[in-house]
Every structure is written in structure tokens, then in C-alpha cells.
């Protein structure tokens, strides 16, 4: 029944994809050696995105899966983005309209007078 019908998906050459992934890994490691900040970031996160895409597409067969499955996963990511957008103004920044968070920038200083004795 459906299980059988579904099971026979086209299997690409996994070893080739694996080779690409390893190559990308090497790229990211080498890139991290660089001292140019941009290069490091792209090597680190740009490559990570590509790797994740390759794994999802070829190993998880998300491209031949029912359409709504990737959408579902993307919506979950969207909620995390919303979370980030809502929280970072308070947590990522250390000062804002009428408030400052000095303790974060020099922890030791305020550590003295805060906390239970």
C-alpha cells in the first residue's frame, strides 16, 4: 500500500554529495584561518547554509516530500525569527530608550553590590 508506493524514490549518488559536503567543510575550516572578518563569516555561515541545504535536499529528500513539509519546517523557523526580533532589542543591546544595562558591559563592577551576601 502507500508505504510501498512512497518508498521507491529516486536515490541520487550519495557518495558524490558526501564528497561535496566534505569539500565544503574543508573550505569553511580554511576560510576560518583568514583574518578578514567577512571571509570568516561567509566561510563559516554561508557554507553552513549550503551544507544544510544539501543534506536536507539529498539525504532527507525534502525536495520530493509533500510540499507542505518544507513549509511546516520553514514556519517553525519563522517563529524563531519572530522570537529573535522581539527579544534582541532588550537582550542583545545593552541600552535603549531610557534604560541602560551597565552590569553587562562591566560585570565585575556591579557584581560587588548585587547578589545576596
Amino acid at each position, binding site marked *: 500500500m502507500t508505504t510501498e508506493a512512497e518508498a521507491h524514490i529516486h536515490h541520487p549518488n550519495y557518495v558524490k554529495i558526501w564528497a561535496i559536503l566534505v569539500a565544503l567543510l574543508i573550505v569553511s575550516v580554511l576560510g576560518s584561518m583568514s583574518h578578514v572578518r567577512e571571509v570568516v563569516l561567509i566561510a563559516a555561515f554561508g557554507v553552513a547554509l549550503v551544507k544544510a541545504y544539501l543534506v536536507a535536499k539529498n539525504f532527507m529528500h525534502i525536495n520530493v516530500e509533500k510540499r507542505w513539509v518544507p513549509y511546516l519546517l520553514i514556519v517553525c523557523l519563522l*517563529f524563531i525569527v519572530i522570537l529573535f526580533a*522581539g*527579544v534582541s*532589542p*532588550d*537582550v542583545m543591546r545593552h541600552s535603549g*530608550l531610557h534604560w541602560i544595562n551597565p552590569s553587562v558591559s562591566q560585570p565585575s563592577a556591579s557584581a560587588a553590590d548585587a547578589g*545576596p551576601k
Partner: protein
Amino acid sequence: MSTQVQHAEPGFFHKYLWSTDHKMIAMQYMFTGMAMALIGGFFAYVFRMQQGFPNQNVPGFGLVTPGKYNAVVTMHGSIMIFWVAMPILIAAFGNFLIPLMIGCDDMAFPRINRLSYQIFLLSALVLLSSFLVKGGPFGGAWTAYPPLSASGAYNLTPAGAVLWLIAVALEFVAFLMGGINFTVTTMNSRAPGMKMYDIPLVVWMIVLASIIFMCSAGPLIAGAVMLLFDQTMSTGFYDPTRGGDPLLWQHLFWFFGHPEVYVVLLPAMGIVAEVVAVFARKKVFGYKTVLYTTWAVGFLSFVVWAHHQFVAGIDPRMANIFSITTLMISVPITEMVFLYIATLYGGSITLDTPMLWALGFIAEFLIGGVTGIFLGSSGTDIYLHDTYFVIAHFHYTFVPIAIISVFAGITFWYPKMFGRMLNETLGKIHFWGTVIPFNVIFIPLFITGTAGDQRRVYSYAQFAEQSRPALQHLRTTSTIALLFMLSFQLVFLFNFFWSLRNGKTAGPNPWRSSTLEWTVPSPPPHGNFAELPTVYRGPYEYGLPGAAQDFAPQNLPDSALAEGMKA
């Protein structure tokens, strides 16, 4: 396809304690939830007594010290939401109804289902065990804001705080498993012919609630791990002096906490939809529109959370955004309630007990809904935040959700669950004995809240101005009303257990309802359907022109409609 799997009738242990039968697991959830409700209700009694008759011995409890007061308030909140509303509304009704209503023999993953209950039970026991540890149970409010919750030196209940957190985390795991099971079952295991828009609303809403829960709980689970390490491993995730930030927890908590409101609201709305449709003998007005509004509510509930934190030290500019989104969420909710009211139009309404509860839900929930506007609008929230106005507001939403709609559901499906009818007279007594005191409890609290009474204050004696003896009679009124409300629950308990034996036998379809669970004998046998049904139409076909009877069961072929269903 239509042949039924042979289910061996299991022995006592496997039948009642180790069962994988969704109906039995539903019962386990329901009775656990009821037991926890009694505990939570007792706590309500304790702190209301302290409010109504300050600093006197509370019968059955003793003197309420500040520490005990905080603990009791905290436990009341946590228990009522995590161990009463969720297990009964989502887990109990979800487990019982989903397989029956979508026409299959069980959940898709019965053993995961059983495990989810066992973890839930464990979480309840962990929570209760915190009453035995040194320092007593956690008293830092159900929101557990760090650093108070993060350090035993601050909250003075080091063990209690840890146990509270572990209990909540376990409870989340249980409901993640249960919710995913519900979702998968509903998506995959529907009876042949049951299309997306033939699913009864209550199933839709329980599943959507599970999905909302799943998406919102994740970050808080991560946050709980961090808080646990702050408590036990002296990390500094929420400690400002060590690079952490207390606001982070507040955000993670409310990012879950607000969707949670809708996680419990939606199943309640679903139950009410079923009951109203049956007793008004009407198709739900705009079934699809109801669903669209539900989706809209579900999505919007993720972008409003910081309205709980307007004055909590978030950047003031953010408050404007969240104020707008918060008021926007009233748009789909209003639409939904309007549609429910419109469903009554053109019906022929009989006021049996379930219908009373359902209509009571709509009437009361409206009050809870509109008072939310005062708090969602940032301007007034500056003053009303953390006053009894908030208490009254969310009890006007949560009591209809977790009490009124639950009674609507129980009284409606009791015949299906146990094969006997509840006593109608006792049911009506119980209804009025619950709903009238409920209003008498919380309308005074609206007034004291507007007057500036702060919540979680065990005695106003300290506050020369705010103590206002002039308002004491309101606080006392509310307490006495609570005593009435609680005592009338005995009527229900008696009715419930008395009717188990002495109620008149129900037969498969006492309410002449058209959804699938009423086509099987009551109580349904192991495996539910002697022959698995095929679905031909939507769930609410009442008064269908040309049909022999005023309701058209979902599994009745169009050809058979004219001569009606063989009784």
C-alpha cells in the same frame, strides 16, 4: 479495509493501568486532572480566605504566613493551567474524541500515547512532592521570574524551585508527545471520505492547539534547561552580574505563555461548537470561516507575547508594536464569537445541561475577552498591570475555558464515555450553582483591581492608603462566593459517580447528533467501530432538507438519507 483488527480483551492491569486504548488513557488524564483541580481549588480557598478574612486561621489549613501565601498562589496558578486545563481540555478530550470522531480504532501511536500519560503523571507527582521538601514548594509566582527563581538565596525554597521547574518541563514533554500523536492521527488516520472540511471543529481545534503548543513550547524548554543550570550548576544565563539577562526568561516564558492561552482556549471553543450545533439543531454558521479565524488566532498568538511585559523593563518603543498586534488579535476572536452566536439563528434550541454550559461559556467568555482590551492597550496597562483587574480578567477567560466548557464537554459526552445519562436536575443545579457564584467572585475583583489592589499581596495592612478598609467587603463577598462555588462542585461529583450506576442507559446516540462517535455503542468497545465507517458529509448537517430525520449522520450514504438511519 473495513475488517476490524482483532483486539484481545486485556486483563485488569493492562486494562486500567497499562492500557494503550485511547479511551482508557483519556479517562486517566481526566481523573488525574480532576484530582489536581480539587487541589488547586483548595489552594484558591486558602488564599481567598486570607483575603476575605485577613490573618485568621483558615479552617483546614491554619494561619497563612507570607511564605505560605506565595506558595499557595504559585501552586494554584501552575496546577490550574498545567495540570488541570491542559490535561482535561487537550489530553482527555483529545484522546477520547479524536479516534472516535475521525472514525478509526485508536491513536496512530498507542504506546507513545501511554508513555505521554505516564510522563504527565510523573510530572504531577514531582510537583506534589515539592510540598514535602525542606523550604516547602516554590513561591515565586507561576511565571517564575529569575533571579528570584534562579537562586535559593532569594526565593528561600531552593528545592521547591527546582522541583517546580522539573515538573513543568516533564509536563511539556508529555504534551509534546501527546500533541504530535494527535496531529499525526488526525492527518493520516481519518475515515475514508472524510475530507479536510469534514473534520468536526473540536478535533480541528485540539489539533491546532497541539501544534501551537508544540511551536511555542520549544524555546521555553530550552529556557527551562538554562534556568535549571542557573539553579543547580551556578551558571549565569539570567544573572545580570555574569553577562546574563533576567528579561530573557520573561521573553521566553511569555513567548510560550501567551500562545498557551489559545492552546487551552481553542479546544474549549471546539467543544462549545459541537454542543451548540447539536442543541440548536443547526449547522455551525460559517464552518470554514470559523477555521480561518482559528488559524489567524493561532498565528497572531505568536506575535503578542510582550504585552505581558509592558512595564517589565522592555524597551518602551517595543510596547507600541505589541500593543497593536494585541488589539489586532481581538479581530479574529470577535469574528469567531459572532459566528457562534449567529449559529443560534434559525435553530430550535433546547436548554439541556450541556447547552446551558456552552451558552454560559459564550456569555462569560465575552466579558473576559473585552476586559482584555484594557490590558492589551499599553496606556491603561501601566496602571492595571498586576492588579486584581488582571486576575479578574484572566479568570473570566480561564474559568469559562477550564471549568465551564469542560463541564459542557463532560455533560455532553458522559453518555458516550460511560453509557449512562447524567441526572438533568442535578446538572442544572450544578450549572447555576457554579456560574452565579463565579460572577459574584470576580466582578468585585474587577472593582478592587480598578481601585488599585495589587495581586500576590498577602495582606494590605502594610499599605496605609491602599489597604482601604472600605473595599474589604468586596474582598469578603468574593471569598464567600468562592465557598459557594466550591461547595456546589460536590453536586457534580455526586451526580458523576451516582450516575455511573444509576443513570438511565443512554443508547448509542442520546442527543441525536451527527458526528461519528455517536454511531458506536456507548461506551465504545475496544477498537471502537465494529465496522470502520466511511464518511459522506460534513459534521453538522442538521435540518438537511429532504432528509427523513433532522440530522444526517456523517457515515450515512446519501441514498439512505431519505428513509433515515435505521435506529
